[in-house]
């Protein structure tokens, strides 16, 4: 891993699903570089390949062809378990549907990534409580997801994503299920983790008023990048 390499570099990435007539070309030659500390919004119409890109960036999936360099290291050929390790140590996820474990307290949900890091109980507890505190839910540590509102659940999910101090957070439509006020709360949190902790953020969104929180907006169309540029401040 070289120090001056960009955090993320995609080179001519393609992804196809299916075979023959039924073949779908979800990504069709994507080149993309994201520097450490950046805050990127990925936008575009439905089916344009945003989630597919996020899955590859998050090492949940592998490209059909092309190269993915993470911190300068080619990770396109890693096997399942190697990718799991990479995710464990460098990547945090926030999903549209929160994806908290049901019948499991907020605290235990946030602790879970640390469990897989093999951290001792007391340290885990402390870090998880700290993360919950940062998202303003320290007083809800013992609550089950079913006892929390959507916005609160997503904040717990963000606490879970940042608790292991990842290099990057992959958020696929994190505000997709939330109203505007709640969405802005979530974006403010992400912005804070980006600026204060230097965590890189890659986020998919359909909403322009959410996208403006990012420094950079990338537009996808038919599996390609159509437009890529800095967010123009409205002010």
């Amino acid at each position: 891993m070289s120090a001056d390499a960009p955090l993320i570099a995609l080179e001519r990435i393609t992804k196809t699903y299916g075979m023959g007539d039924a073949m779908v070309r979800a990504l069709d030659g994507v080149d993309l570089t994201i520097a450490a500390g950046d805050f990127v919004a990925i936008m575009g119409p439905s089916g344009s390949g945003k989630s597919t890109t996020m899955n590859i960036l998050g090492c949940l999936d592998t490209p059909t062809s092309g190269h993915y360099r993470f911190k300068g290291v080619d990770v396109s050929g890693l096997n399942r378990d190697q990718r799991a390790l990479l995710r464990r140590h460098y990547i945090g996820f926030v999903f549209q549907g929160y994806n908290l474990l049901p019948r499991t307290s907020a605290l235990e949900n946030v602790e879970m990534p640390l469990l897989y890091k093999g951290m001792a109980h007391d340290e885990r507890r402390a870090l998880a409580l700290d993360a919950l505190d940062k998202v303003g839910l320290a007083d809800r540590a013992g609550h089950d997801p079913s006892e929390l509102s959507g916005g609160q659940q997503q904040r717990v999910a963000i606490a879970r994503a940042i608790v292991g101090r990842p290099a990057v957070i992959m958020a696929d439509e994190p505000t997709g299920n939330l109203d505007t006020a709640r969405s802005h709360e979530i974006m403010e949190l992400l912005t804070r983790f980006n600026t204060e902790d230097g965590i890189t953020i890659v986020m998919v969104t359909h909403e322009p008023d959410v996208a403006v929180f990012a420094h950079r907006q990338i537009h996808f169309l038919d599996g390609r990048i159509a437009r890529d540029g800095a967010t123009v401040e409205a002010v």
Partner: protein
Amino acid sequence: MLWQTVRLAVQAIFRNALRSILTVLGVVIGVAAVIAMVTVGQGSTEQVTSDVAKLGTNLLMVRPGQAQQGPQPGNPASAFNLRDVEAIATQLASVRAAAPADTRTMTVILGDQNHATQVVGTDSAYLTARDIPVVLGRSFYESELRSGAAVCLLGQTVRKELFGSGDPLGQSFRIKSISCRVIGVMAEQGVSTFGTDQDDFVLIPIRTFQRRIAGNADVTMIYVSVRDGVDTGVAKSQIESLLRERRHIGPGEEDDFNVFDMKQVATILTGITAVLTGLLSAVAAVSLLVGGIGIMNIMLVSVTERTREIGIRLAIGAQEGQVLLQFLVEAIVLSLLGGLLGILLGLGLAAIAAALMKIPFSPNPLVILLAFGFSAAVGVVFGYFPARRAARLDPIEALRHQ
């Protein structure tokens, strides 16, 4: 991490307590069957062994007639006589004691008490051969035996029936028309393996019996106790050749009597116990198999239900092995729980059975440990497939699962 995994498994199991219990029912029944059977089997073996020891492991019983049961062809074999008994007792060095016996079921009467019991005509050697101590009074005097005196020794049951808690010594009661004086009481023998009361009998001198009850000079059974250190098989063949000679049986002819070795009873009973234990173990094995399939089924359901959870864990960085372990541990904990319940249930059943059958309750720690290990194995074997399925899920699809 492992401890965490176990905790997680226990949580998952208790989240669905009722379903978990129904799931492990097969294992519970299988293990309970094994434990109950082996424990009862062991208890009855111990009972048989101690019964045989009580009867005397060096006891031979000689009876007229061939060994096989049913009507004998030709003339019924003639009974023995007292000289046969004397010959066995005096001519064979391997014999410690030989006692004649003839037995009738008769009513004994005292005042308005009457009780049907076994009246055995014999001599003092009977007590030696069968190793029954006299706890009150004394055994027969030689003179009483020779003259055929009307004296008797009581078994504990007869004593209770006729005399209650009173002192029977010197008292007289009636057997038929004989007025019989009690000279002693024998030690309690307890209930035999077959459920018969071994204290329900009266001893009187053989000559008294022959003269005043049977009206002949027959001896229908000879109890022989073999000297310590002498093989009962050797003594048996010595008795056989002596009796063949005395009863004038030609070289080509079959014995018209048989010598029964008490050890044979033990062997037969142990054999029966072994066969029963084997059969029931087979039933238990089938039950465990069914139980295992039940566990596999519920684990597969659980994996499907928790697909999203698995997706989350995988996304967060769980490796295949860790997810595998999680579900495997869950299956093992589940079946161990079943095993534990089964052991408790089995021991409970065995304790009840032991009390009803009046045999010792003797749990075998090794078998319990084995049953525990076996239920863990059921968890591993039948939990592996569902766990592997969970571990191999594609994280993206798992996350998308509703």
